């Protein structure tokens, strides 16, 4: 029997999971399997902290923090990722295989060379158009750190992709 929390969470998953998978795919530099792990981990954390999430002044900001922390947590289990064994749950990546073109491959390779939090800063700033303050909030760091991290991330991307890299914020 489902509780009110269960019902709310289920509705949340149905409405937001696809977006989470997209974000997670970027945060994991296009690793669909790791992205699915990240989404599962994020949603699990969210369910456990559901009352706090419901009370949050900025639910989207809360969600981003949980996502980033789950991303960081993946490093915690650096020997392997432990899976909870679940009956009858297909362990398949939900994300479609992303574009295989030369550009996508180059970007994927470039992103993989970035530390996860630097990658997250880049994604939040240049894909989701978050301002520096919201990005800093998601990453739990100072605004100055966001600026320096994104600048370094762009520099490193340009090394791989080339000087033609264009951003909406440059």
């Amino acid at each position: 029997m489902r509780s009110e929390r269960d019902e709310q969470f289920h509705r949340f998953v149905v409405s937001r999971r696809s977006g989470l998978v997209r974000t997670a795919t970027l945060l994991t530099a296009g690793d669909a399997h790791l992205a699915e792990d990240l989404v599962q981990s994020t949603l699990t954390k969210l369910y456990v902290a559901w009352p706090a999430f419901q009370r949050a002044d900025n639910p989207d900001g809360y969600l981003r923090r949980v996502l980033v922390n789950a991303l960081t947590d993946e490093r915690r289990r650096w020997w392997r990722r432990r899976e909870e064994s679940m009956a009858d749950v297909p362990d398949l990546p939900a994300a479609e295989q992303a574009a295989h073109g030369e550009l996508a491959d180059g970007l994927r390779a470039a992103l993989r060379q970035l530390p996860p939090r630097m990658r997250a800063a880049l994604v939040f700033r240049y894909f989701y158009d978050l301002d520096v303050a919201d990005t800093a909030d998601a990453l739990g760091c100072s605004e100055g750190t966001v600026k320096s991290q994104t600048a370094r991330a762009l520099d490193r991307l340009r090394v791989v992709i080339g000087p033609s890299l264009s951003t909406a914020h440059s």
Partner: protein
Amino acid sequence: MTTLRDQLADLAGSPGEPTTVQADADLARGRAALRRRRVLQSAAGSALVVAVAAATVGLTTAGRPTGTAPQAGGTTVAATTATAGTAAFDLVSYTGKQPAGFSVDKVPAGWEVQGVTEGFMTLAPVGAKPHNSAVPQGDVADSDAASFVGKVAVMLQSVDEHGEMPGKPERVTVGDRTGFFVKRPGTTGDGVTLFVKQPNGINLEIQVWDGIGWTHDQIVAFAAGVHVNPNAKQGRG
């Protein structure tokens, strides 16, 4: 010109709408995690009562110092017999219950066995606090035995690695066995792994988070007292 945003959008892909099965599975995972948390909180609360009672007895009873530490699984660590070692790394006898896959003769002073299952054993500094997912963790150990940040983790090498050691193994002697230190590829800054050869051919794996500052010699000294029990199980992945 293709902008970075366009490229990121391509990379993000277009995941379809979640299926009911997926949403149900997410819900099941969440509920299971919440149940585990409540059980752990309950066990920690009970253990705290035991620890307080033990401390009270200790205060009212003359004799040699005795310490107890709460354990999530209801086991207790009694660190009593200090042995030779460096000032910062005194290995002390571990006398707590060790019912699962691994056991250990000694632990460094100030450390405790945080959890032991058939799949792994985690050692953490005494007094680790619960992880707050809203606060960046950095290298600080938390009370979740399944997290290895800031800790030492003991396990068997993954069945999927077929005994092959990644990276460039550095041979050492661990007690009467052969060991190899390995820095796993792609884990820069995360830690170092010591593999210890076992008679059955399945390597014992001891992973040490970089931030905790154990030297290779100290890791070897600790590893010499680690035992793989018959019910230990290899993980996958």
